[in-house]
């Protein structure tokens, strides 16, 4: 078994960097902890959850997907290569690692997105099991767990009351990482500390059944009342993947960007004619919940919510996927009990 002293996490990062990995880890930056590039001296924070997710490094906020040189009404297409830096994302929460399977599906289900795939192939994911959770976590309600290994190339587990980690490689990429780590990982034996207890907040099957049948429910107005329509939740979410394509140019050249986008904004579905199929924030909030917990499950047999809780933590107005699901679950329970009587 491979062990790592907890105070040597930075040494692991350094060893990997020396072997050519770009090391991404949870780094404190002011009042936020963010997954960012590790540099010597940066403190890696393993408690808590970063404001951003692994998605940033597989499907970045903006990337160039096409390029042209322009000449009046003519143009010449230019080379565009997907960027693929050998990367390790170190000590992310298991919910983040799990989200990769949703992104893999979206970007490959019918045709293959070379940009995503290039980054994906170059990326090794190392998750860190959770010994603590906060009041926003709900992975266990959507089929996840604080020690899930899904999507991870290697997992770290806290041991010895927090003074060491067990490092377990799971895939060839994970094994390659262990080799690159060299002597920073020592041989030994340890028992993993117990993981966080995360009681289930709702039954996702009950909620999904309700969602499948209640598109027109007036309750959506109540669920969405406090939403002011920004992208904080969708952009922080590890599995939200909707995007926009935008061109920019000078007289001589143009680029096409692929940028994150969100169904939470009115512009997302606005037709040039002025017609907007989702013209109210209620319709837009409903879309977000439905897409993740009804439409994607129907189509791909995947739940597109990992229960990481970032939406609840980051929403300035108290919304979140779990809030809506809990209200639905309570409603279903009340109806059920009402009928049983």
């Amino acid at each position: 078994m491979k062990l790592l002293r907890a105070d040597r996490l930075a040494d692991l990062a350094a060893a990997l960097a020396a072997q050519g990995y770009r090391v991404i880890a949870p780094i404190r930056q002011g009042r936020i902890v963010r997954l960012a590039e590790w540099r010597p001296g940066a403190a890696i924070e393993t408690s808590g959850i970063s404001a951003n997710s692994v998605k940033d490094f597989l499907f970045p906020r903006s990337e160039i997907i096409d390029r042209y040189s322009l000449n009046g009404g003519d143009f010449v297409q230019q080379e565009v290569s997907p960027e693929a830096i050998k990367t390790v994302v170190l000590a992310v929460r298991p919910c983040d690692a799990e989200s990769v399977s949703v992104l893999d599906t979206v970007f490959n289900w019918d045709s293959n997105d070379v940009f995503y795939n290039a980054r994906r192939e170059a990326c090794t994911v190392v998750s860190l099991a959770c010994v603590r959770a906060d009041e926003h976590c709900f992975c266990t309600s959507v089929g996840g767990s604080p020690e899930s290994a899904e999507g991870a190339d290697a997992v770290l587990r806290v041991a010895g009351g927090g003074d060491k980690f067990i490092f377990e490689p799971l895939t060839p990429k994970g094994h390659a990482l262990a080799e690159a780590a060299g002597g920073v990982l020592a041989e030994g034996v340890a028992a993993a500390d117990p993981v966080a207890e995360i009681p289930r907040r709702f039954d996702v099957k009950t909620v999904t059944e309700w969602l499948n049948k209640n598109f027109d429910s007036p309750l959506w107005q109540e669920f969405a009342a406090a939403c002011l329509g920004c992208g904080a939740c969708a952009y922080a979410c590890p599995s939200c993947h909707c995007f926009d394509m935008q061109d920019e140019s000078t007289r001589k050249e143009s680029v096409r960007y692929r940028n994150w986008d969100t169904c939470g904004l009115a512009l997302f579905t606005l037709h040039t004619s002025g017609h907007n199929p989702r013209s109210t924030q209620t319709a837009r909030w409903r879309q977000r919940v439905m897409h993740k917990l009804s439409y994607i499950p129907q189509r791909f047999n995947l739940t597109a919510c990992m229960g990481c809780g970032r939406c609840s933590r980051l929403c300035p107005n108290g919304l979140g996927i779990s809030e809506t699901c809990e209200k639905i679950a309570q409603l279903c329970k009340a109806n059920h009990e009402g009928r049983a009587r």
Partner: protein
Amino acid sequence: MSIVDAIRADAAGLLQTGRAKLVLGYRSRRGQRVPILLTDAAGADQLVYDAECRQNLAAYLRKPEVRQHFPVGVVAAPPVMRSLVMLSAESQIAADAVTVLAVSENEYHGALDLAATVQLLREKYANLAPNEELLRKVREVAAMSEEERAAFWTEQFSKCTRCYACRAACPGCYCQWCVAKRNVPQWISTADLAHGTFAWNITRAFHHAGRCTLCGACEAACPQGLPLMLLNACVAECVEKEFGHKTGYDLAEKPLIGSWRPDDDDGFVR
């Protein structure tokens, strides 16, 4: 009666008498303070108030779902009170659309109409200054050279993901067609590059010159921890120095950047 009890009683009273059809206030949820939109007096016992209440509830007054319930009640601390006055002065709400449940950290002033709110602001909250720490940082930035300042702000804005949480949280951002949305022409790049994030943040700050009440809702809403209050305070400092203007103390005020006086300095015209 505690401040919270007084707020609850007045909110319930407004809803019961029909003086408001909806009350915007705060509730507790998982240790955070978040907005609540009450239409039923029975829900008033969920209302809370303390220094953790950072959202500017005046931002909800642009939402059609709220406007259809006018007149409304709004739990408001002095910066939020000023935002409400500003919205009325800018013709976004009728003066009688809002009853203000006027509160500060230490005192509850009762359920006031906008005219009485202005009176209160002038009497008790005329000299709201941002905190010392913020003022110190403003001076630090002001002391930088142009290049240093450009580099400083570029670095700060590099974390922006263009989620527009700042815009959503701000009562002054009520434009149906935000300049960032327009694409003929594309005034502000949507890409995650310096020219886009810089343009967005600076443009938003400038559009609030003389309108920002330094309520802090934008910074509290930003998921990436951008120092938006520092940016707004730098602009506010400049506005105060050059124009001596502070929004939210006069229902008949003209917006600073939307009006001019014959004696305005035009020395920059060369």
